[in-house]
């Protein structure tokens, strides 16, 4: 057993949220395993495999790093100036854990502010698989499943959701 408690899980997710809301993206990358994946499925197929279904985001670790490189570039116009985001995480549950991996689900609301637009709200569920590596908990799988039937008023998902 990795012996992660719910409080540890919450602390971990809150700390990650603070890094993302603070645009501390290199520090965020350090939370990932070397084979991490980050996925946002299409709204109409929330439970599916990016090998046979079109996703909105299906990054392996190389593309996650490329995504961060892009987001740090002023020419990533969709995020320059960067959006202000504020994420609320709740209903954190540890679904399973063994010696190596911990499976966690949590609900999220991410508020995104950009220029003078009204706020955009992304509501959904996070699904994580964490592993114990390099002396701490690391993210191996990070999925953000958006509840909206369509991205409706959400425009792009150009920041890390």
């Amino acid at each position, binding site marked *: 057993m990795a012996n992660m408690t719910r409080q540890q899980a919450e602390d971990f997710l809150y700390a990650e949220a603070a890094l993302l809301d603070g645009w501390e993206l290199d520090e965020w990358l350090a939370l990932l395993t070397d084979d991490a994946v980050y996925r946002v499925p299409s709204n109409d197929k929330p439970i*599916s495999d990016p090998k046979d279904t079109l*996703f909105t985001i299906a990054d392996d670790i190389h593309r996650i790093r490329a995504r961060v490189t892009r987001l740090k570039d002023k020419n990533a*116009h969709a995020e320059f100036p960067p959006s202000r985001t504020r994420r609320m995480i709740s209903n954190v549950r540890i679904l399973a854990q063994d010696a190596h991996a911990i499976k966690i689900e949590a609900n999220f609301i991410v508020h995104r502010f950009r220029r003078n637009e009204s706020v955009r709200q992304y509501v959904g569920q996070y699904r994580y698989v964490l592993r114990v590596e390099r002396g701490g908990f690391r993210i191996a799988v990070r999925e953000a499943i958006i509840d909206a039937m369509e*991205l409706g008023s959400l425009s792009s*998902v150009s920041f890390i959701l």
Partner: protein
Amino acid sequence: MSELREQAWVINQPEAMHFAVNRATLVDPQVLEFERRRIFDTCWIYVGHESEVRAPGDFRTRTVCGRPLIFCRDSSNTVRVYLNTCRHRGAMVCREAEGNAKHFTCFYHGWTYDRDGALYGLPGQSAYPPNFNRADFALKEPPRVASYRGFVFLNFDAGAMPLDDYLAGAKEYIDLIIDQSPSGEMEVIPGAQEYDIRANWKLLVENSFDDYHLLSTHSTWLNYLKNSGVEMKRPEQGHMLPAHGVGKVLGNGHAVIDNVNFRGRPVARWIPIYGEAAKPEIERIRAELVARLGEARAARVADTNRNLVVFPNLVLNDGSSVTIRTFHPLAPDHMQVRACALGPKEESATARAVRLDSFLTFYGPGGFATPDDIEALEAVQTGVSSYREIPWSVMTRGMAKEGEQLNTDELHLREFWIQWDKLMRIPRGD
């Protein structure tokens, strides 16, 4: 209406080498009302792809030109389009996004229609007068529905020209997409990207085949390709991009950019982003293309990438993947976009995975390029709020050239606007 006719929306003066678009066309609510009647209700509008409904009773609901529709297969497996409204008092008869139905029931008063649209269930029919005839109350279809190589279109104008004539030169480019499939059958892959953009719908038409913006808007995507080992040649003389590309007009407002590929294609040009493991598969696809089509046609299919606009609102991007993108205005400054991926029906699991992965490198609301396009369109929409002070946008790139027009010129954009202007000047009972 008279006001609209007197107002110049598009200035097209080839001799003076002048072309400009009035920015009010992006802002004015009255323009959108005329567009709905004079463009969206008179042109062939894309509904869906035949592969999205396969068996009798399969259906998808979607909104096209502001009308809720059921796109489905009837009892004889023919593709049908019904207006999704009960003939009684108007409620939608199908409220699910997709599925298979034996019948469509309006839950409000219980009227029930079969897959062929016939009204067969009617609670308490005896209360209707003797002149009530069920046959008069079948689900209504749009005046015209037709398909070309799997792409299904409707037309709300009963007198419209046949789809085949309408598509004109665009057919050649649709054929090039279909030729990727050994069986001649392409299918829509599950998973739709639906998103909105706070901008006028015509800005997405322009953006979808405007290669002039590639270097400045998408430098982070080009850097990603470069950092991933994709070879970028220096542009030839007079060009802006690493490969040669031209803009062409195809009739009835359709136009295309037709480019020598540098960015990799799941059919059938490998780039390092696809991974070493996928290399033999891409080579096998290439060999099949050559065996079936011959060297020249295979090279045409595999080594060029093309962004096709079928007037007014269908974009087929045959680039990093094949994208079907269609969009509808909700307001002058707001549109809804729907995009999905198209692939050969018999594609292997490896090739399918490469195709989808390649799609996401560029396209979609989480891609490395589309979000910056969305930002560009929204920046334009905000910027043109001062249309009274600065009424005109210039669109003259390439006008002084004899012969070939490049993908970074604006011939193809002008073609869209010329057709738009022509249709907007024909009253349609509005």
